[in-house]
């Protein structure tokens, strides 16, 4: 039964589970990120950049943002479906949200891997 709920027959269940798993993953990763920030407590530009220098830190940050964007996209999608009954307006708003999420994803990639540290 549980696995049947996760097949293509019930796409809502997969979205629901994705959002929850992203939430859980974010909570764990955020704790790790927070601990290192507290541990190093950067006070200058050089220390701040050094915080982001290790590849594993940037990978972890990227993973956090991927989870956050997925989680937020699913959440805002639900909000629009609940509160915007007019289909045309909802589609326009959803389109703007989709563009915004894609833009944020590109910005995160650029910040983490496009600049040289």
């Amino acid at each position, binding site marked *: 039964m549980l696995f049947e709920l996760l097949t293509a027959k019930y796409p809502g269940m997969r979205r629901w589970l994705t959002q*929850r798993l992203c939430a859980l993953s974010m909570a764990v990763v955020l704790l790790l990120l927070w601990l290192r920030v507290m541990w190093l407590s950067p006070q*200058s*530009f050089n220390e*701040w950049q050094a915080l982001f220098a290790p590849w594993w830190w940037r990978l972890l940050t990227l993973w956090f943002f991927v989870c956050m964007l997925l989680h*937020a996209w699913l*959440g*805002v999608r639900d*909000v629009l479906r609940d509160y915007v009954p007019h289909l045309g307006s909802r589609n326009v708003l959803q389109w703007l949200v989709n563009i915004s999420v894609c833009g944020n994803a590109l*910005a995160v990639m650029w910040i983490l891997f496009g600049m040289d540290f």
Partner: protein
Amino acid sequence: MIVKKQKKQRPKNLDLFTIRLPVNAVVSILHRASGVVLFLIQPLLLWALYLSLSSAQGYASVAAQCQQWPVKLLITVLAGAFFHHFYAGIRHLAMDVHWMTTLQKARFSSRVVLWLVAVTMVSVIWAIWVKGEYVV
């Protein structure tokens, strides 16, 4: 027809001054509202992250902005939204695995969430407005 007539005769109460949301509903709607706020502010935060990492001047300007009171206020509000979303989200996850789902327990966990947010915000406000540093 009869059903329709009965539906119409049902008493309605839309007096907003007598309607009080139960505490679990308050926590739930705040979870939603804070999520939307955090989503909308994301581009600004990413811009600040970009600026602070791009150059020493960018870092200095972000640091200077963080000492302005309107920015401090914004960060305080965002911290409130974040911590509410975080604690209430953990509560929702717990309920998804059928933990604390009776009415009484749900009301209790709602109050726990609100208290946790309050306590966290006291320390955040103390750090930002009294101590003047962002490292709690």
